[in-house]
């Protein structure tokens, strides 16, 4: 039982990290960035390349090294996200929503199969593996590395929340979410803030990608597709556009999946998760912590 809870929290913290980027971008420019899951994939592959360039890894150093790689990867995927926004999304910001969604699907496709062309279709084995001896905590088995990964995820989430609620930058983001035109009149550089939002969201997705690669040990070019869908589910459960809600949604989805797998069997896990998504959208489309928004015409 506690084992299920811990597993759920662990997987949920990945979901939450990826979902945060989704949720931030959606909150600010109301765009569903389908390519977000693929930025996670890009992060995993970038981490793979950086680790490969760093050469042999002594197993005693693996954790600090991994944190260094994590930061490098975050910078790279963040810049990729900014480039994506600049090339594919900014020119269409005033276009009908359908064109923007189709562009996002195209971006996702281009990233996935571009990576396939570069790195090949076969799964790659991560050079760093977080094994370690499991500890007994409250009757559940956890490795210290798992705990470190959860801690890193929590630090990122708290940092992001502080950034959005306490800083000048965060205030600009919230202002743009409310009304981009008035924000521009108040002297906010809207394009720059949106770029930086993409940077943050993509960097978090990249971090989750490296962590997933190091934990599961295997990466492939389609790994972002499913997690993109799951992250969206997490964001919807918590309330899309709402940062604490999204974190809650991620953890909750992880727990639900963990218990769903236990009751129904692993092959139904994804069906269960998407079922939850559809249920939430029908019953409470604003999510647990989201506010009801009336659409202006």
């Amino acid at each position, binding site marked *: 039982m506690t084992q299920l809870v811990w597993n759920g929290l662990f997987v949920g913290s990945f979901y939450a990290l990826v979902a945060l980027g989704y949720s931030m971008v959606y909150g600010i420019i*109301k*765009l*569903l960035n*389908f390519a977000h899951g693929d930025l996670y994939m890009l992060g995993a592959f970038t981490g793979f390349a950086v680790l490969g360039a760093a050469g042999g890894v002594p197993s005693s150093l693996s954790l600090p090294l991994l944190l260094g790689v994590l930061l490098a990867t975050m910078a790279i995927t963040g810049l990729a996200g900014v480039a994506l926004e600049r*090339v*594919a999304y900014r*020119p*269409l910001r005033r*276009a*009908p*929503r*359908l*064109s*923007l*969604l*189709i*562009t996002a*699907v*195209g*971006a*996702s*496709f*281009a*990233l*996935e*199969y*571009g990576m*396939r*062309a570069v790195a090949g279709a076969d799964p790659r084995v991560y050079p760093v593996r977080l094994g370690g001896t499991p500890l007994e905590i409250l009757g559940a088995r956890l490795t210290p590395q798992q705990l470190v990964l959860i801690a890193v995820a929590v630090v990122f989430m708290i940092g992001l929340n502080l950034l959005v609620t306490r800083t000048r930058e965060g205030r600009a983001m919230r202002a743009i979410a409310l009304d981009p035109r008035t924000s521009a009149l108040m002297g906010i550089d809207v394009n720059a803030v949106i770029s930086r939002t993409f940077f943050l969201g993509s960097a978090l997705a990249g971090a989750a990608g490296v962590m997933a690669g190091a934990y599961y040990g295997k990466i492939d070019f389609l790994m972002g*597709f*499913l997690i993109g*869908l799951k992250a*969206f*589910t997490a964001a*919807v459960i918590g309330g899309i556009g709402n940062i604490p809600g999204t974190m809650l949604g991620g953890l909750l989805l992880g727990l639900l999946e963990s218990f769903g797998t236990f009751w129904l069997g692993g*092959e*139904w896990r*994804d*069906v269960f998760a*998407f*079922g939850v*998504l*559809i249920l939430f*959208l*029908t019953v409470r*489309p604003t999510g647990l912590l989201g506010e009801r928004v009336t*659409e202006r*015409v």
Partner: protein
Amino acid sequence: MKTGAAGPKVRRRGVDRPPTRVSRLLQNRWAGAAGLLVALLAPFVNATPYALSIMTSAAIFVMLAAGLNIVVGYCGLLDLGYAAFFAVGAYTSGVLATRFDLPLLATVPAVLAVTVLAGIVIGAPTLRLRSDYLAIVTLGFGEIIRITANNLDVTGGPSGVYGIPHLTDGPVSFYYLTVAVVSLAVLGAARLGRSRLGRAWRFVREDEDAAEATGVNTYRVKLAAYIAGAVWGGLAGVLFAAHLSAISPASFTFLQSALVLMAVVLGGMGSVPGVVLGAIVISLLPEVLRDLADYRFFLFGVLLIGFMLVRPQGLWPARSKEALRSDEALRSEEALK
């Protein structure tokens, strides 16, 4: 597209310009007949089993694109799980035909019933949502259907259903049957687009709130588009099952849905001839670009972005009767001044 706007004259691309020779050719009413003629004569040029199989697949793909065009092109609802309906149709007919030894034709009523039901089950809860939520929910449904087919025993699990009876006795006659069915389906979709319902669909696509305000029941209209799309996809699934005589979950991945969407966007959303052209291009492209197989899907993704940036109306854009009429009205107004 808002037509007839007063105030400073805005040049709208493709509307204000007088029709060029190419666009007049594209609007020719005989374009469809010419296309059908080409399809009918193709087996006389090359009738190897391989070529026939490719052409039959292309025709089935045309039918899928025509169905998705109803949902995406006419009504403006992004469906990213269209392969789900294709799968529902193929599996319903395949399972019924193999379990109960029915001829494939006898399963068609059941397929119709099941696809309509699937359209309602998927559409009813999701069509009240914002359009971008709908996109991702349909994506989820596409995965649900595929994973379910993969897990159940009735559907044969990962290896799927095999030994599905053929509809006709030879590949040539099956090709002609497919062309006939697909032509009817394309024609039906085109007629539907010009009907009262079709006008309501386009109204919803252009401005849902305005449509609601003028008394269009937008929810029911959207559900109708969704069900129509489901039926087209399901019937294409029957043809698919008959063509390959074996189906498995691997045929109904997100990739398949995305390819159909690609065909619709490339050809021109809402334009029936454009969508047919797009479907033929997308389904025959792998045969032409064999050496580029690794880069094909990458290219598709880049093309999707490029088309949306540069030419969102597609290769063969739709020109609705209303636009033509308001064009004429504008011109006669200017002549009066």
